[in-house]
């Protein structure tokens, strides 16, 4: 049963209070988030923390590319829960990944060979790339990494790391890494109000080698993607005049009906689509699914209408600003 309407006022107030709390500059509210309330802002301690975070992140980068594993996962966004089976195998140095939804409509995907990366100059979590000195400095301009303690996930001990954005242009992330292997067993995307938009969490993890049969799709209509040449840098006639600090282009692709430009700050990714589509798609506004937002707008160039869509795990305000900044390269 729903609560009566009057409650809304109370809720609104509570929300703005929360908002006020979380909109404080990260430096200020960081103080109450530190693990130990008695801890002084001691440079030595901070450095040690940082070193530890970096060790974990490099462990993570290693684990996600080289480990074979399978498991059951819950995938949750804004109150909706799905369960999936995931399998990650390595064959001839190539990653083969299979995702199958166990709830709702049967959906399945098998991805082959993401051994080559879209190498953004610096990417601490890049699948094949280790945490380099340059990457560290770069991504830390956009996020502050904090060790948040320990938690048990899927019957295993994990270490929790928070990537806290330094501005409001991107989302935050909380990742739990398996203490033994560094594999992320839980990850959450968090908005500036501290609301969890998406949570991906293992229920069961199996680290034994993956059999070939487990990498085969179990339904005939499974989608297969081949990722051997994922990162093209086609010439695009479009440019994006504004992106949040730290975001750099990682891939430009030509589609049958337009262009696709991918940007990343090392953690977050968004994609800008500029397409010639039918008049039925002249929607202006945003569509949201879990942590993924798509902002649509139209752009008229030389009498031709283009649909601009900015998609990503980013705040909708950011998506909108990016969409507004799309223009023809001069």
């Amino acid at each position, binding site marked *: 049963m729903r609560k009566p309407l009057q*409650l809304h006022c109370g809720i609104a107030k509570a929300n703005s209070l929360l908002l006020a709390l979380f909109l404080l500059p990260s430096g200020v509210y960081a103080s109450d988030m530190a693990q130990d309330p008695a801890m002084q802002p001691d440079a030595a301690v901070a450095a040690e923390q940082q070193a530890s975070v970096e060790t974990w992140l490099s462990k993570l980068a290693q684990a996600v590319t080289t480990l074979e594993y399978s498991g059951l996962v819950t995938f949750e966004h804004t109150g909706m829960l799905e369960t999936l089976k995931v399998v990650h195998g390595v064959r001839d140095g190539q990653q083969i990944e299979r995702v199958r939804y166990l709830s709702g*409509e049967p959906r399945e995907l098998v991805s082959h060979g993401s051994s080559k990366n879209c190498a953004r100059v610096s990417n601490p979590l890049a699948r094949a790339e280790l945490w380099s000195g340059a990457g560290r400095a770069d991504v830390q301009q956009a996020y502050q990494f904090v060790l948040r303690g320990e938690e048990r996930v899927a019957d295993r001990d994990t270490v929790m790391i928070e990537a806290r954005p330094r501005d409001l242009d991107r989302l935050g*992330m909380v990742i739990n890494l398996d203490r033994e292997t560094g594999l992320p067993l839980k990850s959450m995307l968090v908005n500036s109000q501290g609301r969890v938009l998406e949570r991906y969490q293992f229920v069961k993890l199996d680290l034994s080698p993956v059999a070939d049969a487990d990498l085969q799709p179990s339904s005939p209509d499974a989608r297969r993607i081949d990722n051997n040449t994922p990162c093209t840098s086609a010439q695009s006639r479009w440019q994006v005049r504004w992106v949040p600090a730290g975001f750099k282009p990682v891939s430009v692709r030509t589609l049958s009906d337009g262009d696709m430009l991918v940007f990343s700050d090392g*953690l977050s990714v968004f994609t800008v689509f500029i397409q010639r589509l039918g008049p039925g798609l002249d929607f202006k506004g945003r569509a949201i699914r879990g942590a993924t937002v798509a902002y649509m707008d139209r752009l008229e160039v030389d009498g031709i209408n283009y649909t601009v*869509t900015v998609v990503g795990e980013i705040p909708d305000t950011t998506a909108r600003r990016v969409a507004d900044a799309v223009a023809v390269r001069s």
Partner: protein
Amino acid sequence: MSHGKHQDRLNESLSALMDGEASELEVQRVLKASAASPEVGERWSRYQLAASVMRREEVAPVGVGLAESISAAIAQEETPFQSGSAGAEAPAANDHGWRRLLSRGAVAATVAFAAILGVQQISSPQPGTDLVADADRAAQPSVQSAPEPSGFYVAAPTTRSVGLASPRLVPENQPSQGVTGQQPVQPVLTPELMRHLNRVMIEHSEQAAHIGSQGMVPFARATYGDQVDM
């Protein structure tokens, strides 16, 4: 209050509303009645469900809270138009100004639109604008498998699954922005729009899987809306 004549009229209004043929007066009547009596609200929900089943839509029962959402939507629309005319709430519908907005088609659109808004959450950073959507979350404490770190809030589970994988749409031109009277409420998620959104979300996720990665999360996203024909 459950005496015959009133009840009959209410039933008629309800079914007219379900058929998308309710007059503005009838909408008001149903809204008022459902606010006063939970039973009416529940009946509305059942009708909605029945109608959905008949239309072979995969739609979860629309909550009783829909009435609130629509009330709120209507209240929002009223403001810009009432400011000029002394704001008299004439019970006999005279077809002027904003009331035309609530003619049959528009009412149906409003209902559908509110149904989408009402069951989802809004990530909009401005406080106050997400009242309708927030109600879902705040009405009960979040249920969490394990306590999240202090300062994080997890949305409470909901029973809904309006269009399992449909993204939620929030059109740009909100009624409160003083849109001219003739502008109808934006259509909700046409199949074409749905296909487009799914396609771009999938293509984006597949790219994201190569870039920064938290393991296989982007693949989970990429597969999520997959059952829609592409």
